[in-house]
């Protein structure tokens, strides 16, 4: 994954994770694994953890602690109503950005 993708991902990773959680609840490791599957191979596990701490602090997710065979209990994150609202806002912003960029690309041809 190039430097450019890493930079662009900074502003969108939160939306990506919220979108993923809107489909189904997940814990941190599952989220990282999914991102790796999708080709976001350079995303640090710690960065995802920091992001999960943030969306929990901002009240976008409900957290359930589930016992695990090894290590501390796992936190399972699910998107709540406030998170859904925020995600909708994210998609609106994304559509705006994508449409403007597409316009620029076509104008530049």
């Amino acid at each position, binding site marked *: 994954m190039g430097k450019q993708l890493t930079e662009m991902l900074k502003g969108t990773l939160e939306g990506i994770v919220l979108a993923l959680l809107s489909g189904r609840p997940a814990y*941190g*490791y599952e989220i990282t694994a999914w991102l790796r599957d999708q080709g976001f191979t*350079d*995303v*640090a*596990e*710690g*960065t995802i*953890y*920091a*992001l999960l*701490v*943030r969306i929990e*602090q901002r009240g976008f997710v409900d957290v359930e602690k589930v016992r*695990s065979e*090894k*290590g*501390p209990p*796992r936190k399972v994150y699910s998107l709540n109503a406030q998170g859904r609202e925020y995600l909708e806002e994210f998609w609106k912003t994304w559509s705006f950005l994508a449409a403007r960029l597409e316009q620029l690309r076509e104008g530049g041809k």
Partner: protein
Amino acid sequence: MTTESNEPKSRYLQHLEIITGPLEDKKRWRQYKARVKQLPENYRIAVEALERYLMHFGPADGAGAMAMYGDLAELFEQSAADGTPIRDIFGDDPVEFAEAFMANYPLGQYRARERHRFASAIERAAGENPDREDRTKR
């Protein structure tokens, strides 16, 4: 991880804490250190390196800092249990991760003071908020 109790503090404790700082914070700090000690060596070395960085640039004390160190211990306990390689936790740029992690907690006093000073200086230079006391002009 919450360890503080909700009981009202005794007068004695209130006075003592003026001198010592909150005792819950000290207790939480010791708990954090004990958790780190239990980690496999390479994880422990990594956490202690990050801890040093956070000491310089993150919140130095208070409940915000203690919440941060609690979260830090949790991340590394989980990673050690999963066997996540150190490089996968930190990514290519450990500083970037540290900054993203730190951003979730209150600013350290030093950084907060300097940010405030900077923003106020620009406010004055821009001619906004003229009622504010200003020792740099006239």
